[in-house]
């Protein structure tokens, strides 16, 4: 276990295979490396908590668990349950704000 931990990180698979990284990949890596992704995640968490989205999802999960029984539910079940509803109920304002932030980041990153 110790050895595998100290092993250098998996080499960039794209270089290895000679495959071109997708645009999404590039953006993602840039976001992570600059720390912007983390900031965006925190912002998203804050917004979703404020507008009660998190509470709604929590309530959905609780209701489901109550119905099925605590020992008959897995994390995957819950993720499967709330993903469609969760995605649909994100306020437009939150989407707009985050898209705006990402756009600004991209603009500043290419400069």
């Amino acid at each position, binding site marked *: *276990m*110790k050895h*595998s*931990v*100290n*092993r250098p*990180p*998996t080499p960039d*698979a*794209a270089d290895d295979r000679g495959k071109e990284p997708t645009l*999404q*990949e590039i953006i*993602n*890596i840039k976001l*992570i*490396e600059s720390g912007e992704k*983390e900031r965006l995640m925190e912002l998203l968490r*804050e*917004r979703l*908590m*404020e*507008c*009660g989205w998190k*509470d*709604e999802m929590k*309530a959905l999960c609780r209701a489901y668990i109550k119905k099925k029984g*605590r*020992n008959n539910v*897995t*994390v*995957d079940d819950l*993720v*499967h349950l709330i993903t469609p509803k969760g995605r*649909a*109920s*994100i*306020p*437009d*304002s939150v989407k707009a704000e985050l898209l705006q932030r990402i756009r600004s980041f991209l603009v500043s990153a290419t400069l």
Partner: protein
Amino acid sequence: MSSKISGQVSPQPCPHILDFRSRNGSKPFRALQDCIRVKAPGGRAAIRREPSEVPRCGTCEESSRPRLYACVACAAVFCHAPPLHSHASSHALSIPGHEIAVDVDRAELFCCACRDQVYDRDFDAAVVLAQTITATATTSTSGSTGMQCNIAGSQPENLRKRRRVDYRPWAPDSREHAIIGNHSMPLNDTTNASSISSTELPWGLRGLNNLGNTCFMNSVLQALLHTPPLRNYFLSDRHNRYYCQQKNGALNGTKNSRLCLACDMDAMFSAVFSGDRTPYSPAKFLYSWWQHAANLASYEQQDAHEFFISMLDGIHEKVEKDKRKSQSPGSGDCCIAHRVFSGILRSDVMCMACGFTSTTYDPCVDISLDLEPNQGGSGKSSSTKSHNSCNVEADFVGSSQNCGISTLKGCLERFTRAEKLGSDQKFFCQKCQVRQESLKQMSIRKLPLVSCFHIKRFEHSSIRKMPRKVDRYLQFPFSLDMAPYLSSSILRSRFGNRIFPFDADEQDASNDLSSEFELFAVVTHSGRLDAGHYVTYLRLSNQWYKCDDAWITRVNENIVRAAQGYMMFYVQKMLYYKASEKQAASGYDVQR
């Protein structure tokens, strides 16, 4: 299927993790410990071999998956994206012994074979430790503790000394029987035989006459008259008004006879529980209260909550002069009002720059809760940055936004939520020695015997001269478990889904069982701010009664559920005796 570890229910481990633990010695997750990365103080924990590592699935090379798991056995990272595919599960199934993985972004263990989260105490302890270290917690002001794994040390005194005594049923022996018989009056009514037996109303239900816009007082009095510990206290003669007044020389008719709200309460209890059903006029009580709260003495409608606080204060004030004020605040040893209603709130303020946490404990006799302003907006009435931005955007929220009903539990969740004190509310950090943006979180350190929840329906705004009333409906449960709002639960949840290695003492074991409450009274308000009416609903033997000044009627529980709650009174389901040196631990003090 689950076991209790120091009071907290923890899920039964799956066979794979048990197997993993047994095969990998005493510290199977030791190597992972070095990979725990916590960014901001008190922030989330992630697993990275190097701080700058970008985790990527070994099979599909995707790094933008929402769930990436690192196999604990071989450190290979895979994605888990059901129902499309799960490269993590494929890996687990292909190599035995590689079932356990860790979520790289959440530092939570996962069994890829069972496809469910699993827990390990040592691992969780290591994560919590890492998060706590970055928070650089140290002890802070006013005898309180910082955010630590093991929050022992300087707890409020009264809690450390408290021990719980198991319930032992008591029945009077022949001597005690005689004493009881000689010193009490049977409730079997002999005066108004006709009006009693015909009605089905239980004991102690008696209308209160409105003495001129006094429904604010009547409503609260009705609730207090049926607050079990308070009722028991007065009905078992723990405050004898004759003895008290004699002590104060009131019976001599001296002009400076000290007013005693407790005596007036005692008189009211006697009158209300006498069996007489004709409406009672609490004139003496009103007069005494006017003398105590001179600024509120008028024939105008007052606020019921304000009256409640003022009344408790009045009972406390009187007693304080008798005994020396040596008891710690929040212990409830000072007077019956505090014994029944006093709890302790804990407030944690964490500096977001350095992580230093300041913890304070404050006693409280009730909890005032904000209603959410409009659908889509939430938060406390204090003007936080986020509150403002959400309010504006509430107008733009699409129809997809679910406008749920406000619930009492929702209000409590918001009350105990971590709140960012933004740039306009910077808190002075002792460590940084400057004002910094901080994170504030409230929780309940000690529950009172009776919890009174006050809903802030009267908005005082600086813009308008007149406060506004919020009529928004609030759903409240008949049974309420306060466990999630206790400090122990709130602190635990700060670290995510962890088996928290709390000390059993810290847990304050009595909190486990006594966090369940039952609703017994609801004070409702209808109408406008300046022209409104208070009505109380009482629950006796699981029947609901509407107390509208002098009129008492039995009502269906659905009427109560639909009412506009302003103050809700919950009593602990199980009452415990506090260990005491006296022979008679709690009940009757037979000796006089």
